[in-house]
């Protein structure tokens, strides 16, 4: 019994250490709070939003006021409600695309690095091919072939973002494969699944997590870019990108700031704070780091 509490104490202290190291990065802590608040607002959008985001009213292009905190757009929809729903969509797209690309990247990277030989060659050449295309062009072509839409955007971004993760994981696996504890596992006759998933994967999860945060940020930007170009999330569904799409005309850009500044600022803040969190995370989860 004593030993069990001992074990859980130690596990807890490990997590405590990670939290402690993370908290040293003040900017990251602030960023994390910001992200949590924004995420809660986005998730609870249907409860918080004062208006239906698609509801058209007679107040066209009104500046911010008591009724409409962030004004209304050209067809009289409440911008604050639209922004909440847009954040929801953008975060979801970014998150889902990151999950897809990370899973693909990690699995292919593990296989390529561990088994090597012809398997490695084939996987890495595919990776090189995808990486050698101009990124935005690839996304645009894909968006043109498949109908633009929420799920297609997620899949397209997910399928385009994985080569970075695959390379990262492969490199990690290659260096881990030379460590004595992996050699020791081979000598001990441990099965490949144990070596791959119980020994190698936990040692690459840190870098992958850090990389995933940057993919998350990039995916939000890409969704915004695609939707801005009209190839992404389709109206009337709001996303941060297609709200910005409204600012294409010079009159809005110069005269109706409330239609684009909030969405623009939100994108910047989201991307910057995700990157801060990623940086702090990298330092925090290194097990050999000092207090």
């Amino acid at each position, binding site marked *: 019994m004593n*030993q069990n509490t*001992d*074990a859980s104490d*130690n596990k807890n202290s*490990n997590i405590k250490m990670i939290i402690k190291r993370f908290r040293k990065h003040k900017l990251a802590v602030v960023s994390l709070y910001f992200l949590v608040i924004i995420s809660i607002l986005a998730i609870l959008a249907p409860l918080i939003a004062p208006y239906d985001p698609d509801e058209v009213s007679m107040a066209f292009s009104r500046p911010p006021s008591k009724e409409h905190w962030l004004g209304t757009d050209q067809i009289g929809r409440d911008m604050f409600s639209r922004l909440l729903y847009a954040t929801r969509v953008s975060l979801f797209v970014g998150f889902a695309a990151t999950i897809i690309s990370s899973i693909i990247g990690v699995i292919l990277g593990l296989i390529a690095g561990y088994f090597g030989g012809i398997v490695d*060659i084939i996987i890495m050449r595919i990776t090189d091919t995808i990486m050698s295309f101009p990124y935005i062009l690839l996304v645009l072509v894909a968006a043109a072939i498949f109908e633009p839409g929420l799920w297609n955007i997620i899949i397209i971004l997910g399928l385009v973002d994985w080569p970075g993760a695959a390379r990262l994981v492969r490199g990690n696996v290659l260096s881990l494969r030379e*460590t*004595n*504890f992996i*050699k*020791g*596992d*081979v*000598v*001990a*006759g*441990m*099965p490949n699944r*144990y070596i791959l998933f*119980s*020994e190698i994967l*936990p*040692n690459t999860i840190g870098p992958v997590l850090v990389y995933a945060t940057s993919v998350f940020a990039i995916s939000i930007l890409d969704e915004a870019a695609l939707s801005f170009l009209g190839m992404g999330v389709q109206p009337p569904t709001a996303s941060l990108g297609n709200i910005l799409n409204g600012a294409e005309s010079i009159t809005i850009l110069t005269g109706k700031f409330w239609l684009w500044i909030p969405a623009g600022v939100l994108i910047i803040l989201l991307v910057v704070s995700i990157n801060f969190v990623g940086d702090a995370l990298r330092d925090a989860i290194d*097990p*050999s780091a000092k207090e």
Partner: protein
Amino acid sequence: MSNKENRRPLMKVEGLKKYYPTKGSDLGSYKEVVHAVDGVDFEIYEGETLGIVGESGCGKSTIGRQLVALEKPTEGKIIYQGADISSMSIRQLRKIRTQLQMVFQDSTSSLNPRKQIYDILAAPMLYHGIVKREDLDNEINKLLNMVGLPKTMKYRYPHEFSGGQRQRLGIAKALSLKPRLVVCDEPVSALDVSVQAQILNLLKQLQEELKLTYVFIAHGLGAVRYVSNRIAIMYLGKFVEIADTNDIFINPIHPYTRALFDASPLADPQLRGRKRIVLKGEIPSAVNPPRGCRFHTRCPHAIESCSILEPKLLPIKPGSSHKAACPVVLDKGVENA
């Protein structure tokens, strides 16, 4: 050493060769190969410690990796329990893997930094069904006790240990699978001198308790002399001499062996003025090893034929277990060499 008559070979190595390509490419075309191990025969007797000594890059660690089937030899056989482990399938190998274990030089990288000692030790034992889950706790306590660590340390992470403690854990990990042969690949060369002695004593003590057979790979003569029953001297991928520890230290035959012994510092100042063989030049490249005797480029006794004929490892006297690969010295007569 005294029971020479009832020696039974545990493992028999025949014509072991391992070449590594130097210029690999994706297309698989390369021209140069490193002759890391180039034709080595020897036996490992049950319960003994066979020391393998040589300069860095002579291929001694490569032999170690072949013995535990980490790599497949380019040529040759490694016969264990009547079967050649170098030609076994992965499935066949898995059955005997537990019996052939390894202790690594770099103890830092031999333990997964993200796992507690408990998990590191538990996984292989559970996988091979060596202990039942309910006995696991006991077994791990026993293992830690065996290598001289308190059982309370089992929930710690590897980075919380010192180098010597980590090497003890490395030994515990190897022994957890109840092996018969343990290859110790320079297990103490990364440690402080005082800790080295502790680890060597621990290895000796465990050998007695568990009836282990060791292959002890090292470049320091002191450690090898202390633990080994027999010693093989290696130069550029080949054994140049192999004998019982006492025999080789009292009567080293091969010029390389003597140069190696002469190069190690002596505690007795009276002996320091002795005539010594001091080697000149660098160890030749293993990509293009010299023809004939590999040592002839640096050997003070080399004669013309040395660069043509490759010497065989032969008993220095008929029936002797002391073998050397130098016909020049052997022809002159062993006693006054």
